């Protein structure tokens, strides 16, 4: 049974999330503010944390930063809309994904499932996302068992997205992983390569979704 920790100052929200998640077999812990949340996280070692960004006393970002000093537990951000810059900051501070309030239960559960999936390990030299298969050994990509010709940059890019399949990756994160050590602004290059990748993958493969002002998400199975 997975353990989930809910850090939200709204009691009603916590109660509802508890009901929703308990019905899916989660064991729930709650905290009403940041410091309590950190204590609970240390004490109960949850498998996933739902963190509200608008907390009193200690901001959600601060909680996340302190949590990341000692834990890599998956964190799902709960936020209200119009906080794009805060969302980006949270993602770059180590949050795994976010849902925007008001959210549907289905969306929440889907995001939780995706971020709890074992993070990609190097023991298996291939990544499969829907009909797309990446062979990391030979740097080859195939769609429906047919090979897709990708340039090295495109391969690096789709690899980053596929490793995070179903999860949002910010532009900065992508640029850091695909063009390591480069100082220049690569956002234009990123767009161009995404454009090429979309054309090569086409409509039958997993779609690369842009979230304006934030980054990209490669649709994983079961979505869209």
């Amino acid at each position: 049974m997975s353990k989930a920790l809910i850090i939200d100052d709204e009691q009603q929200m916590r109660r509802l999330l508890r009901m929703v998640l308990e019905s899916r077999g989660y064991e729930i812990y709650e905290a009403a503010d940041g410091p309590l949340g950190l204590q609970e996280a240390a004490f109960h070692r949850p498998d996933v944390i739902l963190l509200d960004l608008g907390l009193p006393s200690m901001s959600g970002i601060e909680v996340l930063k302190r949590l990341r000093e000692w834990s890599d537990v998956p964190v799902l951000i709960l936020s209200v809309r119009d906080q794009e810059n805060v969302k980006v900051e949270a993602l770059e501070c180590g949050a795994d994904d976010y849902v925007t309030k008001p959210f549907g239960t289905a969306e929440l559960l889907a995001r939780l499932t995706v971020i709890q999936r074992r993070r990609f390990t190097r023991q298996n030299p291939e990544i499969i996302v829907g009909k797309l298969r990446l062979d990391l050994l030979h740097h080859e990509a195939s769609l429906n068992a047919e090979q897709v010709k990708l340039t090295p940059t495109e391969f690096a890019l789709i690899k980053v997205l596929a490793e995070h399949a179903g999860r949002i990756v910010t532009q900065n994160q992508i640029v850091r992983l695909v063009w390591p050590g480069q100082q220049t602004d690569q956002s234009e290059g990123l767009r161009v390569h995404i454009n090429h990748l979309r054309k090569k993958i086409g409509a039958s493969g997993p779609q690369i979704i842009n979230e304006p002002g934030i980054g990209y998400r490669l649709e994983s199975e079961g979505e869209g």
Partner: protein
Amino acid sequence: MSTFTQPTSTEKKPVSAEVVGQFSWGITLIFALASTCWVLLPYTGYMFAALVFLLAIVLAGVSWNRGPVLTMAVMSALVWNFIFIPPQFTLHIDKPQDVIMFALFFIVAMSMGHLITRLRKREESLAQHHREREQLLAAKHRAELLAESERLHRTLLDSISHELKTPIAIIRTALDGLDEGNPFAAEIDTANRRLQRIVENFLEMTRVESDALKPNLEWCEIGDVLHAATTPLQRDIAQHPLVITGADPLPLFMLDSRLLAQALRNVLHNAILYTPAATPVEIHVALENNLLQIRVRDHGHGFPLESVDQLFDKFYRAPDSPAGGTGLGLAISRGLMRAMKGDIEAQNHPEGGAEFTLHLPVQFRQA
């Protein structure tokens, strides 16, 4: 031809009327003092005249420019020599001590004039400096106040946003827990979504009207903008076939895709709300010179011609509007487009239906 009428340029610093006045006053003063001392000469001796001249130079230095003051110094030395130092009415000096006196007078007069005018200059520049500093401080204070009020505004907006959206979010989550077939739940859901849209519109309108809205430019594809604009409308748009043309071969654009998507979303939402079900909504994207144009055309009844000017006004609602709108959508779209240095226009299409054009000056780059 008419160089005379040109205003004197401040850079060249021509001799101003004020300085000319100082020169003439200076010379007049010297002669007036010389005559006075001449009258008093039998009682005071010729050294007295020298001291009077020095006093005049010091006083002149306090308020006059350096040129007139130094001229006075030279003049008074000559006058003193010519009129007062024996032998009188020659520039010749008999006694060696008078030669020394004359030289000393000359040096003292010149240096006094010079020093005093310099002191005054320095005082003036100090005062000027002081004024500038005060002005800077005042400007800084104003900027701080402005930033503070902006911060306050934003905090207020954030907390109101949080307070209003939290109950809506709770209702939404709670509804998801109810049986899907419950018709009452479906009604609450519809009302809740309407409430959510109203709250978001009000908050967005406030944001658009304050200066808190700053476009965040980045390279983006128009397809992503269209996707972001239409995805939140999926529930409503299902009844209207969406026809998108012109988007495919377009280059990358430098723009704030979130703001543009939102402006477009409101226009689309409007088109869906005001047209009969199953009529298509067409989006045509084009790039003309540096102007990105997005045309949204519907196949409804269009709008009454007399209301064209009011369409984008806050709270304006067309006479036959269905319930559920706030009359803010198009006002927000216009605010967003203008915040990005673009604009939005409306017209009735000659073949029926309304047509909205969003246009925006953009930088672009072939992908």
